[in-house]
């Protein structure tokens, strides 16, 4: 059975690939393709956030009693990244290549500093603290994340 850290880290990378696909098409000026790819990235990212907010974080909070702890911080960063995604979408709708590149760069760094914290600190804490509930949660998370990635 894989760990929560393995499963969620793998999904981070899959989201990165969706992001890169959208970025590539926008850089090529293929706005229709980029819009489709951005939708796919958006679905994958939101599926990941939702799985965390509705399944992983509540389980961690229940196991540790920490409701104002790391999960609260991560929820706040999800809000920032959803806003970043909307700015990216606005640049795409305006067919503004420079703005899209700048917003994409900003969102990528925002995502990766968030991912670093989750992969190095929060997910290992989840694996350590969730005990025997971990395997069942992994299965549920796998189902929630499945089939969201296109590339």
């Amino acid at each position, binding site marked *: 059975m894989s760990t929560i*850290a*393995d499963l969620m*880290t793998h999904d981070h*990378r899959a989201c*990165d*690939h969706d*992001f*890169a*696909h959208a*970025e*590539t098409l926008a*850089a*090529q000026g293929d706005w229709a393709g980029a819009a489709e790819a951005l939708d796919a990235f958006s679905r994958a990212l939101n599926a990941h956030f939702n799985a965390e907010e509705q399944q992983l974080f509540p389980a961690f909070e229940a196991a*540790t009693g*920490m409701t*104002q*702890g*790391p999960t609260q*911080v*991560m929820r706040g960063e999800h809000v*920032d990244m959803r806003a970043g995604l909307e*700015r990216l979408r606005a640049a795409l709708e305006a067919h503004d290549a*420079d*703005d899209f*590149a*700048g*917003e994409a*760069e*900003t969102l*990528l*760094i925002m995502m*990766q*500093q968030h*991912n*670093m*914290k989750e*992969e*190095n*600190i*929060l997910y*290992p*804490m989840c*694996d*350590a603290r969730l005990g025997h509930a971990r395997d069942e949660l992994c299965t549920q998370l796998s189902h929630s994340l499945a089939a969201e990635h296109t590339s």
Partner: protein
Amino acid sequence: MSSANPGLAYEDTPPLSAPLRFFLTAPLFGLCAGLVLLLGDGVLSSRWTPGALAAVHLFAAGFMLQVMIGALQQILPVVAGVRFPAALGVAGSSHALLTLGAMGLAGGLAFGRPDAIIGGAVLLLGGIGIFLVAALAGLIRSPSVKIASHAPRDLRLAMAGLAVTAVLGVALALAIGRGVVLPLPLPQAVDLHATWGWLGWGGILLAATSWVVVPMFQITPGYPARFTRWWGPGVLAGLVSWSLARALGADGASSVLGVTLVLGFAAFALLTLRLQSRTRRSTPDAPFRAFRMAMLAILAGLAALSCNLADDAEHWSVLAGVLILHGGFGGAISAMLYKIVPFLAWLHLTQAGIRAPNMKKLLPDTPVRRQLALHLAVLAALVLGVFADSIARIAGLLMITEFGWLLLNMLRVLHNLKRARHT
């Protein structure tokens, strides 16, 4: 700030001014190294000229160390859950000591002032010591969890390499300035200090950072787990063994270990280039290309170092130093600064509830691309300058421009940050 949030909250990262002071001071040392090349006589004719010693320390203990310490104070909370106690105090005191120390040491080496050499070395040791003790205190309080990434462990190994480099440096300063007798000949002690510096500290730090930065920010496949598991400890063990062999005068063993270390570092650079060639990002920007050029410069530097193992002509070691320090570390550090500083400015504005301009509005591509192109021109001039003093002076002039421009680009970010704050 709850102890339940080890390193996770934005608040756990130090205020903008903490790392920024290092990032803005660093280019001034690169600029001074250029001045030494411009004004000194035959600076690159040998690694032992006062000018070469001063320039190397301005670059390594000035430019490189400032950025590396500043960046570690930013990245350790995120990667290893380290919360620095009194982050601003640690940043302020270590920055002041490192700045004065590097100035004193380089000035002492350039002008042959033993007191300045010793004073500078001791101040540097003090600055490094404050940073390392604070990092250690933070590490002890960080959560003990099992993770797949070897980056946090290798960051710790690099810090051990820094401590060894600093202690060896002070011992050398005392030997040169006070005539303290070392247990091994001076040139060998200098070799140990230099190798622990560029490989034990700089090399392991660059690799540990790359384990994270290359796959995540450049969207490449990850480094193979078996490689990252063994590389850092292997290099450190190799360095310890090589140092012992050198100290005990076991020439055969030290040569074999030296070649092994060179091959080990080359493997890291080659693997990084291979992974980068498989990036999913279709439009590699100037910092990405600069990072790749840095890896190529490291490979060329290692080739020069290998030649130096077989042939002790002066130019090989100078060439290796130029390629590894300026081409390798200088290029990689500049590339990372161009990502770190705009993001920190963006984060600072966002945390203050201000609608932040995106990264490329805070720092447009064009000046970055041009400054990094100049970096390559400087490297080419430095390589030629090893063989012709007149070109070394031109390299110095270009280097002054390179680092002045780097500083201006950093200041441009701050200017845009201030403008965003007031609109």
